[in-house]
């Protein structure tokens, strides 16, 4: 059975990110001849000496003209074992919001380090954002090994330096691969130039990394998305609660409680149009029926009486601000979307702004502007049913929407209920 693995990359023009992705796609036969011909023709026209594989991923006219990646691009390739979705994002600090976006759904982050330069500000920032977004696996590709004479010593030095910096971050799984994206060493096949390296090639690592344990299978959470009432003769009294399992597992017979009403019942069946299932888990989209008729609507949460999320209107979260049109300041009012629940929120307090390069906390900050991240307290008009983001990425995340422009202006990762002092 082929599994799905989503990974995020971040990088700028010089660090070989596009070449690495191009290499993965090309060597796994996921680039097509007509795409390659178009890229070759454009490279030649632009006077480039070699085929610029970045043109494969830079899809917008403005990106090709300016030779930069502006936005998140999604790329796809597959091997017999796995299907991969790459969220390819620009690496410069001015595109922090795009990196956060690409990282939000990733199982794994690829961090690129130029072997000649070692760890630079950008490597630290990318790693920090990956850990902030709780990407469970981090792979550091130490690239351009061909330019440091395939030096094991250089690789080990960078690895040691990275490890030292990483001790301050919460990283679940960290690996290092020495590669030359340009020449293909250790990308798909093991390198003959680096016989001292006894680990996997990058692609082999991507195929084998264990992701099945990354989801929360402990805390049952089922945000009700849509109520199905067919009103047909065959299904006259049918009342099904449709949604996507956001945590834990659910089985027929389980005792449940519905939030916010507090009504309890037991699960009668878990259904899909292909038939009933014995057990549902994240991220399955299913329909749940209950043994009692109780009033449930979109935005309610089905969970277990002895395992409930936090219910509250005062929430502390790390927020990334994503617009240049306004700033986040105390008393800003916004729309908030959390699971299937929508409400309004007001900014009560900004605790600190985080410098994404140094991790320094500026506790005097009184606002957040575009691409800035900080710890914020919010008060919502309705209670939300939430978990810590570190415990559950689905029930621990929210977006903030400007009620005037309707733009998505903030992304939030919940730390917990606000500690009232």
């Amino acid at each position, binding site marked *: *059975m*082929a*599994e*799905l693995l989503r990974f995020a990359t971040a990088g700028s023009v010089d660090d070989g990110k596009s070449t690495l992705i191009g290499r993965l796609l090309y060597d796994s036969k996921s680039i*097509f*001849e*007509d*795409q390659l011909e*178009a890229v070759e023709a*454009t490279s030649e026209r632009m006077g480039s000496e070699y085929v610029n594989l970045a043109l*494969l*991923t*830079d*899809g*917008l006219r403005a990106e*090709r003209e300016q030779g930069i990646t502006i*936005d*998140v*691009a*999604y*790329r*796809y390739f597959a091997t017999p074992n*796995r*299907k991969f979705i790459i969220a390819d994002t620009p690496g410069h600090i001015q595109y922090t919001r*795009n990196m*956060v*976006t690409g990282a939000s*759904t990733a199982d794994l982050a690829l961090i690129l380090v130029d072997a000649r330069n070692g760890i630079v500000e950008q490597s630290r920032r990318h790693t920090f954002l990956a850990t902030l977004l709780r990407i469970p696996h981090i792979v550091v590709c130490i690239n351009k090994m061909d330019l440091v004479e395939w030096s094991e010593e250089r690789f080990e030095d960078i690895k040691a330096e990275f490890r030292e910096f990483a001790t301050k971050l919460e990283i679940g799984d960290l690996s290092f691969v020495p590669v030359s994206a340009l020449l293909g060493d250790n990308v798909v096949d093991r390198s003959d130039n680096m016989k001292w390296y006894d680990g996997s090639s990058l692609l082999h690592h991507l195929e084998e990394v264990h992701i099945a344990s990354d*989801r929360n*299978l402990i805390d049952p959470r089922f945000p009700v*998305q*849509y109520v*199905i009432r*067919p009103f*047909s003769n065959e*299904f006259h009294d049918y009342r099904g609660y*449709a949604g*996507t399992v956001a945590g834990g*597992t659910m089985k027929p017979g389980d005792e449940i409680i519905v939030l916010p009403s507090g009504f309890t019942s037991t699960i009668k069946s878990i*259904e*899909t*149009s*292909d038939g009933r299932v*014995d*057990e549902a888990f994240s*991220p*399955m*989209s299913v*329909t749940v029926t209950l043994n009692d008729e109780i009033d449930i609507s*979109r935005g309610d949460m089905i969970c277990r009486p002895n395992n409930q999320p936090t219910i509250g209107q005062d929430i502390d979260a790390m927020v990334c601000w*994503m617009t240049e049109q306004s700033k986040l300041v105390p008393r800003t009012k916004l729309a908030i979307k959390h699971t*299937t629940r929508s409400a309004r929120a007001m900014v009560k307090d900004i605790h600190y702004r985080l410098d994404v390069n140094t991790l320094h906390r500026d506790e005097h900050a009184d606002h957040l502007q575009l691409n800035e991240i900080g710890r914020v307290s919010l008060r919502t008009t309705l209670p939300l049913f939430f978990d810590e983001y570190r415990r559950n*990425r*689905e029930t621990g995340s929210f*977006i903030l*929407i400007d009620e005037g422009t*309707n*733009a*998505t202006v903030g*992304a939030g990762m919940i730390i917990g209920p606000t500690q009232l002092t």
Partner: protein
Amino acid sequence: MTTYQLSHLRALESESIHIIREVAAEFERPVMLFSGGKDSLVMLRLAEKAFWPGPLPFPVMHVDTGHNFQEVIDFRDRRVAEAGAKLVIASVQDAIDKGLVTEETGPRASRNRLQTVPLLNAIEEHGFDAAFGGARRDEEKARAKERVYSFRDEFGQWDPKNQRPELWSLYNGRHRKGEHIRVFPISNWTELDIWQYVSDEGIELPSIYYAHEREVFERDGMLLAVSEFITVQEHEEVQTLTVRYRTVGDASCTGAVESSAATVEDVIAEVAGTRITERGATRADDRTSEAAMEDRKREGYF
């Protein structure tokens, strides 16, 4: 014993169903665009699954260029009836007759680009606030950058530089009156995923997706079918070949590929081994320039 793992197709299916339900829950008047092509047939199946055992809570709409393959139109009508859905037709011919758009002339005339006007008019006339489309990100490089929820202003325009960030599975469908959202629930599917799903689910497709004999001629490296909608030029040689279609669009700009793949399994083997993208092989509309798709999307195209 449950293994707590989903195959990639089940994970994609689940994501798509989540998106479709989200739209039905949050919008007042969604509509599903439906051409009778393989992607829209997969999307329709996903929509049926999302609301089972209830009916589809929205109509389907076909933008009919009037230059379609008859097999596909017959198939469309049969499939929509089977789904019990209401069919809205936005007609390019009507728009030409009313003088809203001008037919291109010459042997290379195509109605492809003309679809945008009747599409936007129908959205406005019916007050649709969300329109599902079956576009996939692997199809084309501008599409690779487009959101699942793609905001369109009151002119139906897409602004690629001003897209809303899209995080986790939280979609922002807020819009003002007159604006709408295009929703692409199968954004993350590839051509091969579609075919594997067609096989797994036993989804019936129009016959032109499978190998058949047809009178064709070569133009710009593509095999175009001889039909009443297209003028064969003098130097172009008509021959009968065994072909199939990888995409199904307007007959005047959709090319066939030589193929003997007569079953789903044959097609999967062929797609897995192919070295040319489906739009590259078969769509003249994307060959106009490197940004042809981006330009059309900015105008409000699918």
